[in-house]
């Protein structure tokens, strides 16, 4: 919402419209969950149908790098929460600092994921076996969502620097935070499914 027309829209109307947008955004997150749920169902179905898991010639993905990677992502969830606390109490420098931290941590997670793809999965190819198919599809889709989240955060940070968001009117930030928490929560499930289970 460009700063120019922020004054034209009355506070009550902004509150009501951002209430609609919040509900719409949450419904969007639910439908995104369903997409991940569909691929998780496919993964579990194929895993159940396969005689041996992980299939012959493929070893389990490396656990401990993924553990560190997960902590990087969960840490970024925590820093994003504190960024929002900063914005709610009008402490702009806290918001900017913690959002930058979240962006850095998110990129580190993507880096860790890229490292794992390139170095730690020698025999697992996307078009090889059903393990590769489900693993790359799910973690790739999640990585893509993290990438979109990082861009979302960068855009939101730039807008805050330009003064779009104030203490009372920052629906864009709430949406970015919810999206980031959603991406964290999906990784909790994927980390359990692919590395621990």
């Amino acid at each position, binding site marked *: 919402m460009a700063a120019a027309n922020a004054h034209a829209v009355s506070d009550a109307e902004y509150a009501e419209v951002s209430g609609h947008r919040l509900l719409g955004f*949450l419904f969007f997150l639910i439908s995104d969950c369903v997409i991940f749920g569909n691929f998780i169902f496919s993964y579990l179905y194929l895993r159940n149908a396969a005689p041996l898991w992980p299939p012959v010639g493929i070893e389990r993905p490396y*656990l*401990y790098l993924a553990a560190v990677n997960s902590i990087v992502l969960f840490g970024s969830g*925590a820093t994003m929460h504190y960024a929002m606390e900063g914005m709610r109490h009008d402490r702009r420098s806290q918001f900017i600092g913690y959002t930058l931290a979240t962006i850095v941590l998110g990129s580190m997670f993507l880096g860790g994921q890229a490292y794992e793809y390139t170095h730690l999965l020698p025999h697992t190819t996307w078009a090889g076996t059903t393990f590769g198919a489900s693993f790359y599809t799910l973690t790739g889709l999640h990585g893509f969502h993290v990438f979109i989240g990082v861009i979302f955060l960068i855009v939101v940070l730039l807008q805050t620097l330009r003064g779009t968001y104030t203490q009372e009117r920052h629906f864009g930030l*709430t949406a970015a*935070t919810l999206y980031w928490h959603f991406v964290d929560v999906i990784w909790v499930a994927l980390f359990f499914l692919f*590395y621990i289970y």
Partner: protein
Amino acid sequence: MLESIPTELRIIAFIGAVIVAVVALVALRGEWPKTRLEDHVTKIMMVLLTVGCIEVMLVAIGTIGRVK
């Protein structure tokens, strides 16, 4: 080369998990009295974040998750 230093990775993971879990629980307590829809969603997210951290802690200790 990262796969050659499992013990250090497990220590980093464990310490990180503890820190993030504590931070998440503090945030959760802070959010608890708020009643708006977005706060409820944030509380749920914080709880799941803590579950994720506990998962990583157990993996770091070695109780769950098979390496081979």
